[in-house]
């Protein structure tokens, strides 16, 4: 490792922290609040050190009252600040669902455009750490159902570092989901990169034989699956949605037109999932491009279990993605 790459070497956790630090340094209107974000350093250690650097006025430990501090973030945004609210995990966000849906998502429309809510709400999501059925769910698809919200899911180091700034620049409420298995992911940031958007999906691996459409914690699994397929000469394209609402339909359909086969990989439950929405859009907009029915790899329809072998079996895995991809390639069309 040379000096330049050493400077770019980081983890997802550190990249997210650097994004927070840069946001706090860049704009005095920005502040951070949530449970244990200060003295404890954040339950996933993302905010460690920020209290010491920016002080208790801008890095605020809150009581365990999700509805009050999420609502306070919404109110502070209306009042002229740019709050970043951290909720420990998406399961806890249900305690603040009233504020997120009935206020953040609704006030702009209900007031005839008079009030906008530029708040960013960060939360951890997903399974893989044996945290059982109240700390492991992937409910971002629920939030992506709601008009008025923007929902983003950084899955790479670059996005972990830079999506926050784009979210803060947006005048609408943005929900930012960080998958818990990504925090320890290490690698290098793209040299010279200064900013990313929160509007477009990104092709993370080009391919001609099929497309794996995914986001968040399932991206590394799809890339692993694509490598496994590649050893057999099957070239899978991997499309990272990045933004779950609004969906980048154009990028999805472009990929479908290139590969004509699609597997949607989503850690949410299959029924009524984001994967269902993506699939339906493909059927609506690019049906005649398909050489085979769209396939899905989702979580088993159970609350996430504690023991490792059961948790692993409940979640999408590279092996399952490969299996479904092979089945898809075996079906009809030109393949």
């Amino acid at each position: 490792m040379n000096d330049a790459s050493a400077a770019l070497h980081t983890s997802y956790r550190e990249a997210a922290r650097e994004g927070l630090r840069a946001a706090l340094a860049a704009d005095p209107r920005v502040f951070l609040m949530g449970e244990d974000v200060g003295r404890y350093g954040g339950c996933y250690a993302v905010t460690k050190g920020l209290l010491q650097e920016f002080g208790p006025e801008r890095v605020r430990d809150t009581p365990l009252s999700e509805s009050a501090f999420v609502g306070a973030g919404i109110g502070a945004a209306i009042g002229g600040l740019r709050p970043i609210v951290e909720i420990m995990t998406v399961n806890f966000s249900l305690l603040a669902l009233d504020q997120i849906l009935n206020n953040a998502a609704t006030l702009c429309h209900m007031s005839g455009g008079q009030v906008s809510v530029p708040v960013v709400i960060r939360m951890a999501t997903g399974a893989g750490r044996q945290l059982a059925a109240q700390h492991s769910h992937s409910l971002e698809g629920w939030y992506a159902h709601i008009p008025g919200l923007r929902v983003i899911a950084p899955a790479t180091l670059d996005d972990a570092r830079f999506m926050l700034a784009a979210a803060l620049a947006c005048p609408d409420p943005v929900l930012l989901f960080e998958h818990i298995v990504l925090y320890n992911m290490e690698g290098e940031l793209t040299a010279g990169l200064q900013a990313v958007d929160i509007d477009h999906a990104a092709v993370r691996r080009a391919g001609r034989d099929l497309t794996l459409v995914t986001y968040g914690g399932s991206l590394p699994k799809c890339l692993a699956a694509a490598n496994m397929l590649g050893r057999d000469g099957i070239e899978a394209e991997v499309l990272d949605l990045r933004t779950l609402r609004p969906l980048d339909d154009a990028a999805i359909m472009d990929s479908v037109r290139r590969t004509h086969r699609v597997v949607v990989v989503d850690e949410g439950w299959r029924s009524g999932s984001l994967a269902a929405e993506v699939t339906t859009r493909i059927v609506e907009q690019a049906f005649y491009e398909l050489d085979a029915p769209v396939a899905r790899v989702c979580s088993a329809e159970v609350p996430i279990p504690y023991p490792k072998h059961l948790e692993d079996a409940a979640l999408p895995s590279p092996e399952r993605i490969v299996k479904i991809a092979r089945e898809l390639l075996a079906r009809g069309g030109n393949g």
Partner: protein
Amino acid sequence: MSAISRERGLAALREMLRIRCFEDRCVQLYGELKIRGFLHLCNGEEAVAVGTLGALEMSDAVVSTYREHGHALARGLAMGPVMAELYGKHSGTSGGRGGSMHIFDAARRFYGGNAIVGGGLPLAVGLALAQKLQRQPAITACLFGDGAVAEGEFHESLNLAALWRLPVLFLCENNRYAMGSAIDLVESQTDIAAKASAYRLLSRPVDGMDVFAVADAAREAAAHVRAGNGPAFLELRTYRFRGHSMFDAQLYRDKAEIEAWQKKGPIITLTTQLKGLGLMSEDDYQRLEHDARAEVQAAVEFAERAEWEPLEQLERFVYAERTQ
């Protein structure tokens, strides 16, 4: 309490009569199907609206509930656009998109019109946090009913506001019924001011039928909050003369109870008081009532003339249309 002058007395009565006439006309318009949806009227609670809103500065923020016509009018929103909002017309205060329960006016810092019981309290805490962090001299007034006291958001918000010493003036409009549930059927402690004081903030009960008692208490509490002493809480004890909404058959309370409270109503009490003190003649009263009715009539005509929003605009305002 400050001495009552003719000027102060007539001003308070004028404001309360505007609200009463507005609400009474709404009943008629609802019957004519001009106003639809849920309609919650504040007859009997006019002293709370006039006394509390009158104690604020225009730089202060206000968060209200779905029973907010009186609050909006007392805040200075023009009656025509408020009525147009109830009609759902484009020139309504929220462009017609909110209706009776969601009156907004960002210019007057009137932030709804919140129809989730308790949902406005966290919002008010956040507005106050913004005021404090930006070193503004302004405060946030948060109006809610006794029903909100049973919600978790009430307790979370009082705790957070007191903990962070935020400039929130909590105004609990206790009309004794959460929809059809009498307060003693839903609260273990019916003394709401006492309950609030557990959060270590200035808290006191007020006769919500006495407009000057409300105004004086609100002014004192607002000054306390504005001086940086943290939040204050007023329990304004009042009564709702009409049903919860227009669908309410009022099976849960006796007519005798309503009649007893009507005798203690804020408008009749003040009228009797001013006449008794020789500060107001019957002619004065008739003129105030006439003026209020004329203003309401003009508001109805404004709403009748107003346009419907074009269908092509259905999906506007889901996201912000201006950059910040």
